[in-house]
């Protein structure tokens, strides 16, 4: 076999002239597909010795060829830049985790509201965390400021935390004043500068939807504790809020889903209000409620 092929190499090199510059005659003679395929394979075959040499050469020269060096250089740079971005992300995640645990503390102290603790006492406890959050958000802003214009590249790493913060702040604000905490007020509370590190409006709106989810439970527990006027106030607030949300043209995204869920909160509060009213508790119970929402 070996000797046969060796003798053939001389033959093929002789033929290779013809095969590299395709001979018009062979193309014409290729009348059927099978024949032309066969001819193709003979051309491939005849190229083989030269090609083999070439692949050996490229293997030896391989990495040192100018193009692959340029390719390598570019990808090295990519790797470097992506690593940088990755470590920035790690730092953001670290702060976001702290924000998360702080909001958890805040949430747990706010949960006392369901156990009929006085509003002022509950708020005072929760308020102690605000400064911590403020500090954490300023850290976050500082990290993100290192990469101007790339706010939204890393946005996903803190947005759920930011939404949670909005929801808690808005709930506290509502307990205190009976009104909705607006977007700029949240930024103010967190000490954010909207021009360089603001709160995304969609995050704000999602956070507000989270707050609405808290309200049915609050109403139920307030009524149980004897505050029969609470459902009326909550219902009014939630109705206004729901109506305001209807002003927005939403896309089919997460915010839309949360907004769609808000009507169930509204319905639940309506039910409680109905239950209280139909039994005539609302009118008699006005003075009884001790933990009533402070009037604005």
């Amino acid at each position, binding site marked *: 076999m070996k000797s*046969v*092929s060796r003798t*053939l190499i001389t033959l*093929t090199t002789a*033929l290779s002239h013809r*095969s590299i510059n*395709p001979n018009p005659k062979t193309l014409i003679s290729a009348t059927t597909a099978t*024949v032309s*395929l*066969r001819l*193709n*394979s*003979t051309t*491939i*075959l005849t*190229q*083989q010795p030269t*090609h083999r040499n*070439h*692949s050996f050469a*490229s293997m030896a020269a391989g990495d040192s060829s100018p*193009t*692959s060096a*340029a*390719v*390598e250089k*570019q*990808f090295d740079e*990519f*790797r470097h*830049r*992506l690593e940088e*971005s990755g470590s920035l992300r790690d730092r953001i995640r670290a702060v976001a985790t702290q924000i998360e645990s702080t909001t958890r503390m805040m949430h747990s102290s706010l949960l006392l509201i369901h156990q009929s603790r006085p509003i002022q006492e509950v708020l005072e406890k929760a308020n102690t965390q605000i400064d911590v959050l403020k500090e954490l958000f300023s850290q976050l802003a500082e990290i993100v400021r290192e990469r101007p*214009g790339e*706010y*939204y*590249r890393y*946005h996903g790493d803190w947005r759920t935390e930011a939404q949670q913060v909005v929801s808690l702040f808005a709930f506290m604000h509502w307990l205190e004043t*009976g*009104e*909705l905490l607006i*977007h700029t007020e949240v930024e103010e509370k967190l000490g954010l500068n909207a021009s360089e590190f603001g709160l995304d*409006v*969609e995050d704000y709106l999602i956070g507000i939807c989270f707050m609405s989810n808290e309200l049915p439970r609050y109403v139920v527990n307030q009524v149980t504790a004897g505050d029969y006027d609470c459902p*009326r106030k909550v*219902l*009014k607030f939630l*109705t*206004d*809020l*729901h*109506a*305001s*949300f209807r*002003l*927005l*043209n*939403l*896309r089919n995204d997460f915010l839309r889903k949360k907004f769609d869920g808000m009507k169930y909160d509204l319905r639940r509060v309506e039910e409680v209000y109905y239950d209280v009213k139909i039994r005539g508790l609302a009118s008699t119970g006005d003075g009884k409620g001790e933990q009533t929402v402070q009037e*604005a």
Partner: protein
Amino acid sequence: MYNVQELKLFHFIPSWYCQMLHNWASLQRHIHLMAPKSHRIRQLAAAEATMQGTSKKPRSISTEAPAAADTPSSSMKHSFSKYAEYLNQLNDKRERVVKASRDITMNSKKVIFQVHRISKNNKDEVLEKAEKDLSAVKDHYIARLVNELQGTDFWKLRRAYSPGIQEYVEAATLCKFCTTGTLLNLDEINAMLLPLSDPSREPLQINILDYILGLADLTGELMRLAIGRISDGELEYAEKICRFVREIYRELTLVAPKMDDSSDMKTKMDVMLQSVMKIENACFSVHVRGSEYIPLIGSDDASYTLLGVPNFE
């Protein structure tokens, strides 16, 4: 005609509105006697429009405190109308960007198809046309995208324009490889995009991620090209593609896990490996089975042709 009773069932419509509609409906009945039908239809449409407008008002929940209901909600509404404006603008912009991106994708695909029309004898003219089409894509469609994006939009709306940019990267790198045999760098592409944007604005610069994702797709196209070249007898060309693709795959293995959304990239890497292996297998088949033909030169036996190139795409 609207049934006023029925409308009352939609409890979010305030009762005064139903009353108004009732009055209007009776008025309408009078008009109907004299007005032509088309006129009436227009009025109906107008009524519908006002109904949609008013239905967004909050319903008055109870009769207990109708006066107080208005004050806080109007301030709430004021801030929400600002959010609405923000969201509308953002969504409109996103929509325009998606559209621009889709146009870029479509036309870049055409460039890629043009490159695939390559054959042994027409390389120069095919590639010349491809290059021309490619710069048309840039001057026409990418320029439109550039005008939409500003500041933080580059990252905020990245999902909206990324597919188009990836396809463009794919087309541009494919053209470049076919003409010069080298990889078109990100810096080179970005330098070409610079003249598109107004000097006063921040220029659109393709980010590393989209470039890499585009490169990952390039492998698929190069695989098709390599198979085409092999069946055209240009084994040397196929070998060149094979080396190039291997090189890219090798480089990307180091970069891929560090990407922002590496799960997306991971599937692309798997597809890429498939493509690389397809090219390698095709080269291998020609290489190995080619030698089986050696004793057959000059023979008329056509049955061996089936051993040539297996059925790759």
